[in-house]
């Protein structure tokens, strides 16, 4: 939201500047080019104008010259800024923008498509409630690094009695990710950064059911066909040129997988996206089997649990998250490398590069201490730790990776809309500017 406001603010100043120039020109034309003075247009006040005032103008001391010189820039900047902001406010430009952003049928989408994908945007289209109980929706989103996400789908709420509780859906998706990073596999993967181009075509159908406000569950059948090519980021070698193709499952041929999945979610957080107390958990299970070339088959399980505890005051919150991601190969089958568990991004180990660690399994914890500085601004400090591992014997304290950092978050009444922070690890320091909360 702050970006939009900045944009509108600058836009307002430009508009105002143009209007002032036009007005000034017109005024000068009307007055034969004479500049308007500070006196009233009736002229200077006549003699004796201030005789019955409690204080005369000459008795009012002015700010010293040095102070006036120092603050002069504020006058120069302040006036145009004031007019620009007032224009923005009076024209209700921000309100209009918010309405556009929340339009039920068509609205713009901003942001990236994952860490390192560049900045981008697109549009979300939907029939909203106009074809109720059906809804047709679509999304197009592209970024500066040519990442693309296209989606089209239909959903239906079949039972008037159940209302919004039960929803059936089917979707088709295309995802192009031309600069995905690969550093190797396992907890001690090397420091050579390579990149690959991943393209996914996905079709899914399923249902979600929300029996109560706090609980939600669902199931779906997902078909995903992934192709892998050499990465487009010329700064780094392609994955195929560095890693022997037989050591990285799926590097050559990609994979086509059919995956029945199910999930259950419990949410007791309340209050927008910046909870101060409560608990959240989500667990998924999927059986993934190859339907094309390659011997791929595995069970995948994920758990995401979060809790929020106020520390003697609602202005101080301890937030923690546990992420568990397990892939259990079936028999002698393998897990394609692009479906392995990954750590290292703005959601897991924030001090490491994107997708820095990759393995069959991963466990990561985030702990954040958040405190309100003012009604709008908060500060936070965090530490993340976790590791990837292929089997239980690899999971040990030596393989833990730790990152830490801190920054500021900006929020409206109950929602964080922007975070600015620095994260450090033993390998790198990363500066983040993210829209919305981390968790």
């Amino acid at each position, binding site marked *: 939201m702050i970006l939009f406001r900045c944009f509108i603010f600058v836009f307002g100043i430009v508009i105002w500047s143009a209007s002032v120039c036009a007005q000034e020109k017109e005024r000068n034309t009307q007055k034969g080019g004479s500049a308007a003075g500070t006196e*009233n247009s009736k002229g200077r006040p006549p003699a004796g104008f201030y005789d019955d005032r*409690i204080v005369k103008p000459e008795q009012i001391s002015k700010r010293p010259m*040095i102070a006036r010189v120092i*603050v002069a820039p504020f006058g120069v900047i302040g006036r145009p800024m004031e007019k620009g902001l007032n224009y923005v406010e009076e024209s209700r430009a921000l309100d209009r923008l918010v309405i556009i952003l929340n339009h039920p049928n068509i609205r713009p989408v901003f942001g990236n498509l994952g860490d390192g994908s560049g900045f981008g945007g697109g549009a979300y289209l939907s029939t909203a409630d106009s074809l109720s109980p059906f809804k047709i929706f679509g999304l197009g989103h592209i970024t500066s690094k040519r990442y693309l996400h296209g989606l089209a789908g239909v959903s239906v709420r079949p039972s008037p009695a159940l209302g919004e509780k039960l929803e059936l859906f089917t979707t088709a998706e295309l995802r192009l990710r031309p600069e995905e990073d690969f550093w190797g596999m396992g907890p001690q993967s090397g420091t050579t950064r390579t990149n690959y181009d991943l393209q996914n075509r996905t079709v899914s159908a399923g249902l979600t059911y929300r029996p109560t406000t706090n609980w939600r569950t669902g199931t779906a059948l997902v078909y995903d066909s992934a192709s892998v090519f050499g990465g487009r980021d010329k700064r780094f070698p392609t994955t195929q040129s560095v890693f022997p193709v037989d050591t990285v499952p799926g590097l050559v041929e990609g994979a086509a997988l059919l995956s029945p999945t199910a999930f259950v979610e419990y949410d007791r957080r309340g209050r927008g996206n910046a909870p101060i107390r409560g608990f959240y958990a989500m667990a998924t299970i999927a059986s993934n089997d190859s339907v094309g070339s390659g011997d791929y088959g595995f069970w995948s399980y994920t758990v995401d649990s979060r809790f929020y505890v106020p520390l003697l005051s609602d202005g*101080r919150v301890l937030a923690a998250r546990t992420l568990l991601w397990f892939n259990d190969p079936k028999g002698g089958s393998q897990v394609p490398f692009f479906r392995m568990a990954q750590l290292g991004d703005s959601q897991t180990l924030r001090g490491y590069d994107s997708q820095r660690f990759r393995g069959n399994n991963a466990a990561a914890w985030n702990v954040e201490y958040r405190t309100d500085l003012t009604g*709008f*601004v908060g500060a936070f400090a965090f530490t993340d730790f976790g590791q990837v591992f292929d089997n239980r014997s690899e999971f040990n304290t030596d393989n833990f990776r730790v990152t830490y950092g801190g920054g500021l978050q900006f929020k409206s009444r109950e929602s964080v809309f922007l975070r600015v922070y620095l994260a450090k690890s033993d390998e790198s320091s990363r500066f983040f500017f993210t829209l919305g909360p981390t968790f």
Partner: protein
Amino acid sequence: MFLRIAVMMIVVSIVAAAEPKCDNPVWFDNDLKDIQSPKEWGSGYYYDFLEGTFFLQTRQAFDFPRTFRKIGGNPKEAYNVNCEGGVPDSSWFTNRNGKQRMSVEKIRRGFRTDDGPSGTKFIVTRGKTAGITPGFWIRDEKGNQYIVKFDPPKNPELATGAEIIAGNLFYAIGYNVPQNTLIQFRPEQLSLDEGAKFTDDRGVKRKMVARDLEVILSKAAKKEDGSYRAIASKLLPGKPLGGFKFSGTRKDDPNDIIPHEHRREVRGLRVFSAWLEHNDIRVGNSLDVYVEEGGRGFVRHYLIDFGSTLGSDTAFPNVPIVGHEHQMDMRVAAKVLATGGIYQPGWRKPKLVQYPGIGIYSAEDFDPRSWRQNFPLAAFENMTEADARWAAEIIASFTNEQIWAAVDAAEFSDRDASEYLKQQLIARRDIIERTYIKGPTSQTARK
């Protein structure tokens, strides 16, 4: 003997030097002289926020003389002060209760030129759903125009009660305020003017239709009998010029020669605002109007919009931090940051709204010295002990009966809520008195 006389003469001369005679205090500062209408300017929320939060602080940091005077305990006193420390009447302020006690009936009535909308049928001429509160403009049978404002549906009487009480008290203190009248009406009493305009949520203006009126009323608190309670605020006569600033002067108004940050009634407004929890005091909630009276045209300065006073935040009850910190309070933020969040002001704890029609307003933990409005204002930052004492004297001049009358004007349906508010206003008055007035002056004045 000679020694005694000498000592007495020295003492007398010292006393005489310390307190100059004040035989003929000035009680009128003639800033009502004929001028041509100044230009209108905008005054919005965004700039008020930026100006108060960032620009003002920076400017003051480089105002070295001000800083040195402040460190030396000798801040610049207000200019428009007579030898009694009083503020002469002007286009800004008229001495009322502080100079001569108003009758209880006058306090209850507030500023009125008439009895509010007359007749039983009102014609709606404009409407809006944009902004914090929906509302519309009406024309009564005499042709007078009023802005009609409502209460939020979950808090009947909250904003209208605050508007009436604060408006009446600010008027009794001495400020210029619009005429606000409490009205009750049924939807059947309204009809749409043929040329009525409507501004929707997106700020788009168009012809107003009956459905728009229904939408506006659906966002307002409705009484059990189907009627609505509202404030009818009479349009101010004259040409609106935008709000007055809390520093500097209006350059194109020759009458406006005293920088506003050095006017006692503008500085002292901080204490009055603290008393009445006018946390939203800012440029946007003031208004300069070019009026023509007695063959002269001049600018009169008004306080407007009291919906966010007392326990009301207009559309909601106050949040707990109101009155305790600015919306972006750097001092508090620095303390919290320096202590790693260990320090969290106690006032940030959630508070229970005991009376929906009152919101959050209390004398408990009220400290007028540390009271803060939403944004820093130059004049408030410049307030001296003398300014505060002047304001406190006026507040102290209000008797319990006058305060009861001011609250009774809001016609709260909940008697307990009304009593609670009276107690809190009186308790806050007493705290202000104890804080700024040393000596019996005000006690005597009130009795």
